[in-house]
């Protein structure tokens, strides 16, 4: 009896005590709730026209929700082009609110590619029906390592835990979108350190549906993590989209004194001429139309490689297809912009043509308006379009502004 008590009962009691301690200790709980937002964070967060990162600006989620619900609101989603200097306020989130009745916010920075955008819109799916969304694509997304799709760190930065929670638990989201989402998680799962219960469940759900054995093998893990998730949700889970926002808080960048009721007053031709002149002044030392400082620091007369990834291995292309499907399903008033790439620098840009054609087909079948800025012929390329080798200049942005305003009005008129 003594042996049983010492060897079995005491260790068993100890395991309960220690197990309980582990379950309720701070380290484990922090692992469970580590990236949950606190209401204080949201209240202290400033409101901006452009949100570079969603992890540092929880209020961006509320702003996105509001802009998507607003008839005159436009959400611009893109990557590094949104982060470049813009002293003359040509980018849509400055130019359009300053000159028109539209409200705009922009979200993204380098690496915020199609899957990250897909995930953000899936989180906001309740608000995207007939909402105005502009997606700025870059040819660079489909080349080299970028063609592997959104990286895990970018995904985790733009898709916080509450968003994962929503995607996982929301029964209104069609299963094909969920499955695509879960597939991404399961592919990236080995790279995750201390995954949250949401990520674990997504991975397990994906594996469980593969075959009968997997189903049996993953069922206990699913049950365990459902329990943990319920517990985590019960102690701390701030859903940013559930926080009611007062009218006072509503803000998008807006120079109210300048706002006009229509857009006919905008003199595009004179704006274009001025911006092309300014571009000429900034690109004096090279004939490729690249900003002098950038040319001196990074280009030195060398050409960039166009590393084409075969179409069937190009995950970014698959992500775009899925993103377009989502936009079609929710009847989003979406506009697509494909940025140019400097054909002087990218000498072999022609290699990109088959991918470009695929993108045209993917977007074309949806009926969304598409502004393709890519030009392969150096003779026909407008040098003022780009400030460097892959980012738009003031002139480039103005052409995008015009496209947004023209085509958004088109949607409003029901075309």
């Amino acid at each position: 009896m003594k042996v049983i008590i010492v060897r079995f009962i005491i260790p068993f009691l100890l395991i309960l005590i220690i197990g309980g301690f582990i379950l309720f200790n701070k380290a484990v709980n922090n692992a469970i709730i580590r990236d949950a937002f606190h209401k204080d964070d949201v209240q202290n967060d400033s409101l901006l026209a452009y949100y570079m990162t969603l992890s540092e600006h929880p209020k961006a989620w509320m702003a996105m929700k509001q802009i998507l619900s607003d008839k005159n609101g436009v959400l611009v989603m893109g990557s590094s082009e949104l982060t470049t200097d813009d002293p003359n306020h040509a980018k849509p989130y400055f130019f359009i609110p300053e000159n028109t009745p539209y409200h705009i916010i922009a979200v993204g920075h380098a690496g915020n590619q199609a899957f990250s955008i897909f995930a953000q819109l899936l989180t906001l799916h309740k608000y995207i029906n007939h909402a105005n969304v502009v997606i700025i694509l870059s040819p660079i997304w489909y080349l080299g390592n970028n063609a592997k799709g959104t990286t895990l760190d970018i995904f985790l930065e733009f898709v916080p835990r509450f968003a994962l929670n929503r995607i996982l638990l929301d029964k209104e989201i069609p299963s094909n979108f969920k499955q695509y989402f879960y597939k991404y998680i399961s592919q990236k799962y080995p790279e995750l350190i201390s995954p949250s219960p949401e990520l674990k469940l997504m991975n397990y759900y994906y594996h469980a549906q593969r075959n009968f054995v997997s189903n049996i093998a993953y069922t206990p893990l699913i049950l365990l993590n459902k329990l943990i998730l319920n517990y985590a949700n019960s102690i701390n889970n701030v859903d940013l989209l559930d926080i009611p926002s007062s009218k006072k808080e509503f803000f998008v960048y807006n120079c109210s004194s300048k706002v006009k009721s229509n857009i006919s007053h905008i003199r595009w031709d004179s704006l274009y001429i001025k911006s092309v002149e300014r571009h000429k002044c900034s690109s004096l030392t090279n004939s490729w139309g690249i900003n002098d400082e950038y040319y001196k620091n990074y280009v030195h007369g060398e050409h960039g490689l166009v590393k084409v990834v075969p179409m069937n291995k190009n995950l970014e292309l698959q992500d775009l297809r899925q993103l377009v499907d989502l936009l079609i399903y929710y009847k989003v008033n979406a506009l697509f912009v494909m940025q140019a790439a400097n054909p002087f620098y990218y000498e072999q840009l022609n290699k990109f043509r088959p991918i470009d054609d695929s993108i045209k087909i993917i977007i074309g079948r949806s009926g969304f308006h598409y502004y393709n800025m890519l030009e392969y012929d150096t003779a026909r390329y407008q040098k003022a379009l780009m400030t460097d080798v892959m980012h738009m200049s003031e002139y480039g942005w103005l052409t995008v502004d015009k496209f947004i305003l023209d085509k958004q009005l088109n949607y409003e008129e029901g075309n």
Partner: protein
Amino acid sequence: MLPFSDLDFFLVMGILISLLWIFKLLRVPKPTFSGMVLILSLLYLIIYFPYPWHVLVIVIYSYFVYYVFSFVLKYRNKLAGSIVLLLPMILVKSDIRFHFYPFKLNDWISFAGLSFMSFRILQVYLDAKPSDKPVYLLRYVSFYTPTLLIGPIDRFHRFNRDLDEGYRRLCPFRFTEGLQALLYGLLYKYIIAECINRYWLNSFDPSLKEWFPMVNNMYGYFIYLFFDFAGYSHMAIGMAKMSGIDVPQNFKFPFLARNPQDFWRRFHITLGDWLKDYFFKPFYLFLSGKKVFQPYPLLRQNIALFFTFTLMGCWNGFKLWFILSGMLFGIYSLTYNSYQYHSKKKRRDVVFGKMNDKYVKWISIIIMFNLAAFSIYIFSGRFPFIN
């Protein structure tokens, strides 16, 4: 999921161990105990482990080399076979990369980068004699799973004996022993090591070059490493015992070690034993056979000791801090060895003289603790003067 990474792993292991016990209690003749261990090992590897093929590729490759060199070519000299066997590890540790379309070779052999894996692979090969029967491939595969990534370095022959005993290995006594070891492991790893890491080790930036943060980091890391690694080892031992397999002990009060040799009999014991059996002894014998060294037994021992510990450092990776840390342990060992040699020769303690044994013991413990802490501090890569 990686072993011991989260609660899910313990649930899976609980289920797998329960299956083993259910088969024992049902008294079914098939599958046998070793068959069940293999099935459950493969089940874990293929369904739950994130890189199953990476493990299997290395295991199959090492079995092939073991078989060809030991039973086809029948080489008595093990050097060539060892080099071929360790080739994947050398590629990974030296960061030599090959990108063969459509896969990256380094991804596939990444598992060989774990020195823990290589110790076990090499041991099976070095123990093999051409007169022996080759080990069964399936047993060879299941040898790697009970302690897949971390823990004590088990020996194949010992593991094989456990399997041969069959379901008798599963007994309540061993199970409760395993449960205890698991408990210790949980306590060490998830509570003590976690607290040290959070509240002690992270209290100062490791790059600070002032004496107090450095001393704090040195002791903090040494104690953290013990609880973290001993925690893993205990958990591995515990789970293996609950499944009827006696993986050897790996830690035995290392902070009470009195000298460098004693330290390696208490800290990562299986590594110390491995190096002694498979490198120190053969190397010492090799030196003893050389005429030039024959008149100098102390020199022979010291050279063998120094190279053994330097190799231990290199095995962790070709980083300066690993190599220096190994060399430092080598210097400690040869210094202590010389001290012992001269004490024996002169029949008196050449350092402590006639000091009371109790004092000598505690002074030795304190000195060894600090020396080991310093060497482990360098090993950690946190020593700000070595980058």
